[in-house]
C-alpha cells in the first residue's frame, strides 16, 4: 500500500472516529465506542514495547495503575487540579517504566523472564497499594468528590454532570484525543531511527548490537513511551469513574486487556490495537446480545470468547487481523504479496 493510500485511509478513519458520536445518538453505543478506544489506548501502549520492541509484558497494569492512582491521590489528598495532576500521573508511569526497564534490561532479561518480572512488579504494586493504607487508602480505594456543578465540569475534568455536549461526548473525545496522541507517537516512531532500531532489536538483538545499536537504551526508551501512554489511560479511567482501588489498578485484568487487542489485531502494526479492540468488543457485545439472551447471566462469557479468538489468531493469523485485511486488500487490488516492512502496511 502506498504512503498516499495509507494517509488517505488514516484521514477517513480519523474523520469517522471524530464524527461517529454525532451520528450515533444512542448513549449505549457511545459508551461502547469509548470502551473500545480505551482498550485501543491500552493496546497501543503495550504494542510499542511488545509489538515493535518484542518485549512482552504481562504487567502493564503497573503503568495503568500508577497513572490512575497518582491522578486520584494528588486530587484527593492535596486537592490539586486534575489538569495539573495528569502530568505527574504520566511522569509517574514513565518513572516506574524506567525503573522496571532499567532492572530487566540491564540484567538482560528477555522473553518469558521479562514477562514474569513485569507480572511480579504489578503484583508487588498490587500488594503495596493494598497495604500502604496511609498513602493509598488501602483496599477501600480512593473515591473522588463528585462535582455536580455543570459550570465546573471542565475545570474539574468531570464531564458526567456537564452540559449536554460534555455529558454525552466529553469522555469519548477525551479518550479519542489520548488515542490520537498514542497514534502520533507510534507514527513518529515508525518514521525515525529510534523506531527502526527498536524493530531491529526485536528481530535480532545480537545483530542489532553488532550494527552499533545500544539495545539497552532503545528498549528503555520503548518502555518509557509505552508506560506514558498506558499511564494516560489510567488518568482517563480515574476521571471517568472517579474511583480507583488496588484490584482495578494493579490486578491482572488491565495487563491482559492491554495485550489482547494488539495480538489479535496485529502485533507491531500501527492499526492493530484499534482493530483488535473493535473486534473484541464488537464480539463481546454481540455475544451478550445473542448467546447471552438465551443463556442468561453468564459473566465471563466474553472472556471465554476472547480466549478462543486469541487461540485461533495465534494458530492461523501470525500477523493478526490487520494481516488478514492486508491480504484481502492485495487480492482485491491485484497487487502481488510483498514483504512485511519494518512498519505495518495497513
Amino acid at each position, binding site marked *: 500500500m502506498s504512503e498516499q493510500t495509507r494517509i488517505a485511509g488514516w484521514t477517513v478513519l480519523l474523520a469517522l472516529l471524530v464524527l461517529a458520536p454525532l451520528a450515533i445518538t444512542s448513549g449505549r453505543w457511545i459508551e461502547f465506542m469509548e470502551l473500545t478506544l480505551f482498550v485501543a489506548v491500552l493496546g497501543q501502549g503495550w504494542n510499542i514495547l511488545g509489538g515493535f520492541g518484542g518485549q512482552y509484558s504481562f504487567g502493564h497494569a503497573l503503568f495503568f495503575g500508577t497513572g490512575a492512582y497518582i491522578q486520584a491521590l494528588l486530587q484527593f489528598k492535596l486537592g490539586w487540579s486534575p489538569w495539573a495532576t495528569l502530568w505527574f500521573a504520566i511522569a509517574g508511569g514513565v518513572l516506574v517504566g524506567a525503573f522496571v526497564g532499567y532492572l530487566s534490561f540491564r540484567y538482560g532479561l528477555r522473553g518469558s523472564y521479562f514477562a514474569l518480572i513485569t507480572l511480579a512488579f504489578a503484583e508487588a504494586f498490587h500488594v503495596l497499594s493494598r497495604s500502604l493504607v496511609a498513602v493509598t487508602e488501602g483496599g477501600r480505594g480512593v473515591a473522588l468528590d463528585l462535582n455536580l456543578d455543570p459550570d465546573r465540569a471542565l475545570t474539574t475534568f468531570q464531564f458526567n454532570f456537564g452540559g449536554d455536549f460534555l455529558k454525552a461526548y466529553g469522555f469519548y473525545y477525551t479518550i479519542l484525543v489520548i488515542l490520537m496522541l498514542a497514534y502520533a507517537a507510534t507514527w513518529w516512531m515508525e*518514521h*525515525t*531511527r529510534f523506531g*527502526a*532500531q527498536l*524493530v*531491529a532489536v526485536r*528481530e*535480532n538483538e*545480537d*545483530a*542489532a*548490537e*553488532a*550494527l*552499533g*545499536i*545500544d*539495545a539497552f537504551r532503545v528498549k528503555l526508551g520503548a518502555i518509557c513511551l509505552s508506560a506514558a501512554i498506558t499511564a494516560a489511560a489510567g488518568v482517563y479511567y480515574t476521571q471517568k469513574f472517579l474511583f480507583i482501588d488496588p484490584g482495578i489498578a494493579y490486578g491482572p485484568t488491565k495487563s491482559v486487556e492491554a495485550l489482547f487487542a494488539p495480538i489479535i489485531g496485529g502485533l507491531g502494526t500501527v492499526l492493530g490495537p484499534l482493530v483488535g479492540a473493535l473486534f473484541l468488543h464488537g464480539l463481546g457485545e454481540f455475544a451478550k446480545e445473542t448467546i447471552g439472551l438465551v443463556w442468561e447471566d453468564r459473566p465471563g462469557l466474553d472472556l471465554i470468547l476472547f480466549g478462543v479468538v486469541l487461540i485461533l489468531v495465534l494458530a492461523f493469523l501470525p500477523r493478526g487481523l490487520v494481516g488478514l485485511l492486508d491480504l484481502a486488500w492485495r487480492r482485491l487490488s491485484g497487487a502481488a504479496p*510483498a*514483504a*512485511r*516492512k*519494518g512498519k505495518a502496511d495497513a
Partner: protein
Amino acid sequence: MLEVRNLSKRFGGLLAVDDAELTVPEGAIVSLIGPNGAGKTTLFAAIAGFLKPDAGRVTLSGEDITGLTPHDVCRRGLVRTFQVVQPFANLTVRDNIAVGAHTRIRGRADARRHAETIAAELGMSEMLDQPAAALTVAGRKRLELARALATGPTLLLLDEVMAGLNATEIEDIVRVIRGIREAGVTIFLIEHVMQAVMSLSDRTYVLNNGAIISQGTPGEVASDPQVIEAYLGHGASQAITREATAAGGPDA
C-alpha cells in the same frame, strides 16, 4: 590498525583462545584460518565486544577497546559479521541494510538511500524489497556483509562469508571484498575456502586449539609443517614430505 595482545578466553575448562597475538595493518586484508573448533569465531567475538576476554588487550587505531560493548566497538569503526547469519528476518533487504546505515545516518530516508547505494555496490539491487527470510544462503551471506558495510566501518571482521557458496558465488564475493578494501576499509577475515584465502590475503594467521601456531604470507603459512599437521593430523607433514621425496618431489 588492530592489535591483539595476549588475548585469552576460557569457557569453563576449555581454553578457547590461548594467549593470541596478532596485528592487522591499515589497508590490508588479513585472514585467520584453522580447523573447526580452533577458536576463530571466539576470537572475533572477543575482539568485537561480544565476549569479555579473560586476559589480554585489544586496541583499534591506538585506542583500547577491550571489554567495550559491541555497539561501542561498532561506532568506533569495527564491525563484525556472523558465521551463522543473523538477518532481521521480517524486514526487507533495504530495511536490514538501513539499520546498519543508521549508525552514522539519522534520517530514515537518508539511511534507506544509503542502503540502496550499498546494495548496488554488492549487486543486491534486485533484492531490495524482498524480506531477508526469503533470501538464499548466498543472499544472506551477502546481506551480512552489506549491513556491516553500511555502518561505515574502518575495519571489517568477516566470519566465513563464503561458506556454503558455489564457485561462481565465491568469485563474486572475492571481487566484492577486494572492492571494499580498495574503498579504504581494512579487512580481517576467517575463511575455509583456501583458494580465496590465498588470493585475497596479504597476511595469514593460523589458529589451532586456541593458539596461533603460524603466521606469514599465505604461501609461507601453507608450507609450514605445523600448519599441515594441524589440518591433517600428527605426522602428516612428514608423510607428505616423504611421499614427495619418493615421487621425485614437486621441487626436484
